[in-house]
C-alpha cells in the first residue's frame, strides 16, 4: 500500500485512503508544470500528492514556503490563480481542484487580474430561529435538535461536505461516523424548514443575530452554468446563533520552523483521510500533549516511518500506550529546536536537543485554539484556559451559544453533548481539556503548554505570512509596547489573510513571556470580521456599473438621448446639460442656447424639480411656519416664490409654491431638495405640530414640467392652448391655470427662472412626450431651442437668482442673498426667524452674494476661487480671504464673462475692485450687484 508511487495523480497518494474520486483524473498546471489530481482534491492536496513541497516565497525574507495546514488556517499557501477565473492570493488549501486549473506561486503578494470580472455575484436574505455555523459533529447535532424542536434552521459550513473534523475512523452512537453524518443530513434535508448551505463561510456576526455568510457556488464546477452567480452573500437574521466552528491546531515556535515540509499534525492526518495524501515518508511529530498521537498512528499505518518527540518529561498514559504498541518510535522529553534543509529549502532534518533526526515531514502540535471568532464579533469576551493554553469563550452572550471545540471542548463525546444542547449556558467553567478523549478511558492528559523552544529569535517564525518573528515581538516590547494590539500593529503579526488563526495565540503568549507577565493578563487581539477574506465583488453583488446607484430619468429621457444631449448627474437624476450641434463644444452650445432663450424661445425639461403636495385645512398655517414669507395669503390660482430656513436662520431651500385651492398647495423644491425637504416638513409636522391637519405627499415623479421661456413663449403657449387667454393682463406673472389640451389635463404657470417671459407646462408623465413634441412643433416657426441645465444656470445667474447648495453652503441667510424682501415682517414666527436678530446674523461683515465682473471681459474665473483685496502682489501669508466665487459663466446677453461670489460685507463693496488669485495670476475684478441682466425686470411680461 505504501509503495503505490505509480499512482497517476502523484507519488504521495496512498491507496485505501481519502474521499476523492479516483475514477476520474483532473489536469492542472502549477508554475508552468502540468500535474494531475482527482475530484475531491484541493489544489494543496493535489500539489502535495505530486510531491510539490514549495508553493511560494515569503514576502519579506524571501524564504521558501510550503503548505502548513489543510484548510483556511494555513498562513502560507497563497497562490495566484490564472485560470479558469483569474484571482490573486487564494489559499491553495481551500481551492477545490477543477480540470484546467492554472495557478502560480507568489512571493507574498499577488496581482489583480488585468481582465474585468464578468462573473455575477448576488445576495440573499434568510430568516430563521436557529443558525448553526459549522457542520461538524457538534453543529450537526445542534441543527438536528433545533429542527426537531420545530425551528426554522439554517446550517452553514465552509467545507464542500459536512462532517467537520471527522476523519471517518470514529464511531458515533454506535455507527460509523460518516453514517451518522449522512443520516443526520438526510433528516435535515427532509425537513422543509431547514436550509443547508455547504461551501458557505459565515464571515461576520453582528447585532441581534445578524450573520453574513459567503457561499461559493460555482468555483468547484469545471463549467459553471452562466445563470448561476459565482458567489452569494447570505444575510441571515437568526433568533439564535450556534457557533460550532471547531478549533485550529496551534504550532510550536522553533528556529527555521517555516521550512517547506513543516506542517500541523492534524492537517497531515486530514490530508491522509480526506485526500489519500501521505505528505511524508519519514515523519517527525513534535508535540507537548496527546492530541497528536492520532496523527502519528494513522500516518504510520499508512506506511510512513514516524518518530514522536514528546516534549513532556513524564510519559502520559496515552504516550505509554503508543510506546508499547511499537508502530511509532517515541522519544519522551525531546524538543525540536530547529530544522535543517536541502538545496530547495525543504526540510531534511529536525534538530533536537539531543541531536538531528532525518525527516521529510515535521509535524507540530502545540494544542488547540478554539475558533471563537464569531463569538468575539458580537463582543463575547474570551478567557484564558491554562490547560488548553488558549483563549475560549467566557461569559455567554445572549442569543449566541458556542458548542464543541469552538467552546474548548475537544473530545467527541463532549462535542456531541454540547451539540445536543446538554451543556447549560453559560458555558461550563471547568477546563474541558480535562475531559477524557474518546477511547482513552479517563486518564488525565498531563498537558504541557509549550509556546516555543530555545533558539535564535530572529529565525523563530510566529506569523509565516508576514515573516514576523520572535525577534520582532521582542523589538516591539523593547520599544515599550505593552498591549497585544500595539504589538500586532507594530509587528504586523496576525494582519495577513489568515488574521492570525495560527499565530495570534502564540503572539500573545510570547509577548507575555517577554514582558514577564501571565498571558491571561494580556488577553488576545480582537477578532474582527471577515473571518476569511471576502472579495469586494461579492460584497458589491449586483450593485456594479449602472446598478451601483439608481439612475433616475425623466419621461423625456429617450428624446434627450436621441437629440444628442450631454447629460449631467444631478443627484441620481440624469439631466441634459446642453444639446451640442455639430462642431460645438459646451461653451458654444450654451452661448447659442442662452441667446435663443433671450431673443426667441427655448424649452427645458424641468421635470426633476421636487414637488410636494400639501393638503389639509391647516396647510396654509403650516407653510407660514415653514417659509420665511407669508404663504397663507396666497390666492388659489396664484404662485409665490418662497425661501425656507433652518432654525439657525440659514437658507435650506427655495422655490415656488402654488395654491391649488383653499386646502391644497403644491410646494416646489430644488431637484436635490425633493427628499430632504419632504423629510424636513414631516419632522416638524409630526414632532412639533401634530395638531395641524396637514398631509404631505411627494409628487415629483407624477409631473413632467417644461418651462417654455423667452420673448416668443407667448406665441407658443397661445397656440398650444388657444382657449386660454395668455395676455399679460389675463394671465399675470405668478398666475397659473389648470386646463385641458386635446383632452389631456395640463397646468400652465407663469413662473420664470430666467427673468424672461415664461410659462411652465406641467403634465403627467404618460402624456409628457406628446406634449413636448407638440410644443416643439408649435415653437418651430419661432425657432424654439431645447436647452439644458448649464444654460438654465447661466440665465438664472445673469438675474442673480441663487442656486441653493451652489451659491450657498448652509451658512448663508436670505439677507445675505439679497432675498430680505422674501422674509416676512408681519408673521409672528416662522422657522429661523428668531435667529435673524442674533448678533452674528446682523454683522455687516457677513459674506453676501454679489456679482463679479473680471476687468478682462473674456476671463472666466474658476468656481471656488478665493477673493482678496485688490493688489498687484500678494502679501506674505496668511493672506486675508474675503470670500469665494460660487458661480462663473460666459454670458451671451452681457457679451462677457461674469461670476457670482460670496464676499465679506459684499453689499457695501459694490463698485470696488478686488483680486482673484488664479494659480500664479492675479485677476482684477469689479464688484457689482448680483442682478446683472435686466435689473428693472422689464422682460418678465414680454
Amino acid at each position, binding site marked *: 500500500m505504501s509503495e503505490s508511487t505509480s499512482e497517476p495523480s502523484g507519488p504521495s497518494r496512498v491507496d485505501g485512503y481519502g474521499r476523492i474520486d479516483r475514477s476520474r483524473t483532473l489536469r492542472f498546471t502549477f508554475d508552468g508544470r502540468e500535474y494531475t489530481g482527482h475530484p475531491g482534491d484541493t489544489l494543496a492536496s493535489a500539489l502535495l500528492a505530486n510531491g510539490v513541497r514549495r508553493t511560494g516565497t515569503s514576502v519579506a525574507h524571501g524564504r521558501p514556503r510550503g503548505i502548513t495546514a489543510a484548510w483556511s488556517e494555513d498562513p502560507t499557501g497563497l497562490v495566484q490563480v490564472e485560470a479558469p477565473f483569474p484571482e490573486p492570493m487564494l489559499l491553495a488549501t481551500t481551492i477545490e481542484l477543477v480540470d484546467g486549473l492554472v495557478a502560480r506561486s507568489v512571493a507574498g503578494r499577488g496581482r489583480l487580474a488585468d481582465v474585468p470580472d464578468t462573473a455575477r455575484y448576488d445576495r440573499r436574505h434568510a430568516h430563521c430561529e436557529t443558525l448553526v455555523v459549522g457542520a461538524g459533529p457538534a453543529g450537526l447535532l445542534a441543527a438536528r435538535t433545533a429542527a426537531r424542536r420545530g425551528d426554522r434552521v439554517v446550517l452553514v459550513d465552509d467545507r464542500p461536505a459536512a462532517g467537520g473534523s471527522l476523519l471517518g475512523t470514529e464511531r458515533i452512537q454506535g455507527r460509523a461516523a460518516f453514517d451518522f453524518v449522512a443520516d443526520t443530513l438526510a433528516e435535515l434535508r427532509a425537513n422543509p424548514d431547514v436550509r443547508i448551505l455547504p461551501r458557505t463561510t459565515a464571515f461576520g456576526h*453582528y447585532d441581534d443575530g445578524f450573520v453574513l455568510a459567503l457561499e461559493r457556488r460555482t468555483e468547484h464546477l469545471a463549467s459553471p452554468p452562466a445563470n448561476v452567480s459565482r458567489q452569494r452573500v447570505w444575510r441571515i437574521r437568526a433568533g439564535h446563533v450556534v457557533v460550532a466552528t471547531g478549533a485550529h491546531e496551534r504550532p510550536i515556535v522553533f528556529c527555521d520552523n517555516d521550512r517547506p515540509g513543516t506542517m500541523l499534525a492534524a492537517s497531515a492526518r486530514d490530508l491522509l483521510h480526506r485526500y489519500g495524501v501521505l505528505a511524508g515518508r519519514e515523519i517527525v511529530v513534535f508535540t507537548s500533549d496527546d492530541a497528536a498521537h492520532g496523527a502519528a498512528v494513522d500516518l504510520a499505518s499508512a506506511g510512513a516511518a514516524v518518530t514522536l518527540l514528546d516534549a513532556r518529561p513524564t510519559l502520559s498514559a496515552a504516550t505509554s500506550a503508543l510506546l508499547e504498541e511499537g508502530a511509532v518510535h517515541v522519544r519522551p522529553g525531546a524538543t525540536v529546536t530547529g530544522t535543517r534543509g536541502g538545496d530547495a529549502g525543504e526540510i531534511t532534518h529536525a534538530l533536537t536537543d539531543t541531536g538531528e533526526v532525518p525527516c521529510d515531514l515535521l509535524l507540530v502540535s502545540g494544542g488547540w485554539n478554539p475558533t471563537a471568532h464569531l463569538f468575539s464579533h458580537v463582543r463575547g469576551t474570551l478567557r484564558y484556559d491554562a490547560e488548553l493554553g488558549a483563549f475560549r469563550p467566557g461569559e455567554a452572550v445572549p442569543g449566541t451559544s458556542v458548542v464543541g471545540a469552538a467552546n474548548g471542548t475537544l473530545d467527541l463525546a463532549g462535542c456531541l453533548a454540547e451539540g445536543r444542547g446538554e451543556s447549560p449556558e453559560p458555558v461550563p467553567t471547568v477546563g474541558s481539556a480535562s475531559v477524557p478523549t474518546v477511547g482513552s478511558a479517563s486518564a488525565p492528559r498531563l498537558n504541557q503548554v509549550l509556546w516555543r523552544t530555545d533558539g535564535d529569535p530572529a529565525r523563530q517564525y510566529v506569523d509565516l505570512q508576514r515573516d514576523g518573528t520572535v525577534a520582532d515581538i521582542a523589538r516591539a516590547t523593547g520599544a515599550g509596547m505593552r498591549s497585544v494590539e500595539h504589538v500586532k500593529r507594530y509587528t504586523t503579526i496576525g494582519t495577513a489573510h489568515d488574521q492570525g488563526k495560527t499565530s495570534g495565540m502564540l503572539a500573545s503568549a510570547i509577548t507575555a513571556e517577554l514582558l514577564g507577565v501571565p498571558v491571561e493578563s494580556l488577553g488576545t487581539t480582537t477578532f474582527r470580521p471577515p473571518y476569511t477574506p471576502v472579495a469586494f465583488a461579492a460584497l458589491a453583488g449586483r450593485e456594479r456599473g449602472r446598478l451601483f446607484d439608481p439612475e433616475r430619468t425623466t419621461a423625456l429621457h429617450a428624446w434627450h438621448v436621441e437629440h444628442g444631449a450631454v447629460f449631467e448627474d444631478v443627484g441620481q437624476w440624469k439631466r441634459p446639460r446642453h444639446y451640442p450641434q455639430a462642431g460645438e463644444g459646451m461653451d458654444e452650445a450654451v452661448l447659442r442656447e442662452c441667446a435663443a432663450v433671450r431673443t426667441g424661445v427655448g424649452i427645458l425639461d424641468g421635470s426633476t424639480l421636487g414637488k410636494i403636495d400639501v393638503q389639509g385645512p391647516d396647510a396654509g398655517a403650516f407653510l407660514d411656519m415653514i417659509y420665511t414669507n407669508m404663504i397663507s395669503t396666497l390666492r388659489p390660482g396664484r404662485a409665490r416664490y418662497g425661501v425656507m430656513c433652518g*432654525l439657525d436662520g440659514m437658507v435650506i431651500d427655495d422655490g415656488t409654491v402654488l395654491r391649488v385651492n383653499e386646502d391644497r398647495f403644491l410646494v416646489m423644491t430644488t431637484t436635490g431638495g425633493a427628499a430632504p425637504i419632504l*423629510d424636513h416638513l*414631516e419632522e416638524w409636522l409630526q414632532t412639533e405640530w401634530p395638531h395641524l391637519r396637514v398631509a404631505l405627499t411627494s409628487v415629483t415623479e407624477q409631473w413632467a414640467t417644461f418651462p417654455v421661456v423667452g420673448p416668443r413663449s407667448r406665441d407658443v403657449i397661445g397656440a398650444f392652448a388657444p382657449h386660454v387667454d395668455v395676455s399679460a393682463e389675463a394671465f399675470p406673472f405668478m398666475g397659473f391655470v389648470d386646463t385641458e389640451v386635446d383632452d389631456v389635463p395640463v397646468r400652465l404657470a407663469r413662473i420664470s427662472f430666467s427673468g424672461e417671459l415664461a410659462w411652465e407646462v406641467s403634465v403627467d408623465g404618460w402624456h409628457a412626450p406628446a406634449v413636448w413634441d407638440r410644443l416643439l412643433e408649435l415653437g418651430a416657426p419661432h425657432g424654439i431651442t431645447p436647452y439644458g441645465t448649464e444654460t438654465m444656470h447661466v440665465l438664472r445667474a445673469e438675474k442673480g437668482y441663487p442656486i441653493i447648495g451652489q451659491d450657498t453652503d448652509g451658512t448663508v441667510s436670505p439677507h445675505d442673498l439679497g432675498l430680505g424682501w422674501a422674509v416676512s415682517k408681519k408673521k409672528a*414666527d416662522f422657522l429661523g426667524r*428668531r*435667529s435673524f*436678530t442674533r448678533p452674528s446674523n446682523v454683522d455687516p461683515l457677513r459674506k453676501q452674494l454679489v456679482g463679479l465682473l473680471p476687468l478682462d471681459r473674456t476671463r472666466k474665473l474658476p468656481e471656488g476661487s478665493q477673493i482678496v483685496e485688490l493688489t498687484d502682489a500678494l502679501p506674505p501669508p496668511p493672506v486675508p480671504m474675503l470670500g469665494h466665487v460660487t458661480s462663473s459663466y460666459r454670458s451671451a446677453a452681457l457679451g462677457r464673462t461674469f461670476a457670482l461670489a460670496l464676499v465679506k460685507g459684499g453689499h457695501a463693496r459694490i463698485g470696488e475692485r478686488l483680486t482673484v488669485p488664479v494659480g500664479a495670476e492675479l485677476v482684477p475684478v469689479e464688484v457689482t450687484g448680483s442682478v446683472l441682466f435686466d435689473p428693472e425686470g422689464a422682460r418678465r411680461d414680454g
Partner: protein
Amino acid sequence: MQLIACPWCGPREEVEFHYGGQAGVAYPADPAALSDEEWGRFVFVRANPVGRFEERWSHSAGCRRWFTAVRDTATYRFQA
C-alpha cells in the same frame, strides 16, 4: 446590524431608520421672548449622556413616522 422596534411596523433593520437626536426638546412657545443665549441653547445644545437617553427616531425608509425611544448610549441597546 441592530434591529430597532418601530412602534408601527415592528422590528426592522437599523438602516431603515434615521436618528433625530434628543427627544423632548420642545419648540419654544415664544421664541421672540428668549434671549440670544437662550435661543442659542435651544438651537445648538443637546444632552449627550452615557447610558439611558430618550431619543427621537424616524422610520424613514419604512412608514416614515417619528417616534421616541429610550436607548443606552453605552451599549446601543434600545430599552423602550
